[in-house]
């Protein structure tokens, strides 16, 4: 289980490659399915062109919350491991905002637990997006 909140841009595919190397020390051949969700910064939201995005979070509570839902997922589904990486701070076009991955013996558990984690993150993890629009006006995304 890994939870990381980072202010640095990251490449989701390189993160997955590195993480699977560690995972395979213990679980090579054990998992047969992985489901991955990657959320990326779009250039539009609610009909407006977005220039850049700032992500605020509640340091401490965010990590605790994500660890809690990861543990719930590991209990509720037959999954082997979970990974969540989430950006904070200033984010630019096309950069990854969030990466979620789950590994399991069979595909149903991988799909369902990955979906569960992103839905819980979106509805309860204390992150807030502030958008800078094309005309340089700034707004908080409404929840």
């Amino acid at each position, binding site marked *: 289980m890994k939870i990381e909140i980072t202010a640095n841009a990251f490449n989701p595919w390189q993160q997955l490659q590195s993480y699977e190397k560690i995972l395979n020390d213990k679980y090579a051949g054990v998992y047969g399915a992985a489901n991955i969700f990657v*959320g990326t910064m779009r250039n539009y939201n609610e009909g407006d062109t977005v220039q850049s995005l700032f*992500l*605020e*979070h*509640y340091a*401490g*509570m965010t990590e*605790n919350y994500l660890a809690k839902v990861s543990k719930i997922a590991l209990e509720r589904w037959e999954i082997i491991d979970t990974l969540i990486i*989430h950006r904070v701070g200033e984010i630019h076009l096309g950069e990854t*905002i*969030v990466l979620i991955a789950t590994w399991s013996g069979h595909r149903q558990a991988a799909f369902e637990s990955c979906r569960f984690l*992103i839905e819980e*993150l*979106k*509805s*309860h*993890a*204390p*992150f*807030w*997006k*502030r958008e800078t629009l094309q005309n340089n006006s700034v707004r*908080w*995304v*409404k*929840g």
Partner: protein
Amino acid sequence: MTITVKFFASLREQVGKTETQIEFSDSLTVNKIWQQVTANKVLPKHILVAVNQEYASQDTTVKEGDEVAFFPPVTGG
């Protein structure tokens, strides 16, 4: 007793504070703390509350050293 009160995102901007300490003698609910730091404004229904970094309700009672946070609906991911 001393507790720490935090505000996040748009609410932080509206209240004009990131963090404040308050002192009080009796046990207080989250709702009373909100009123104390906002000069008796009503705590809006959509505002979320955490005590010691766990979700809590407006009726949760806080104790010495607790950290209380108020924030708008979350929008990460």
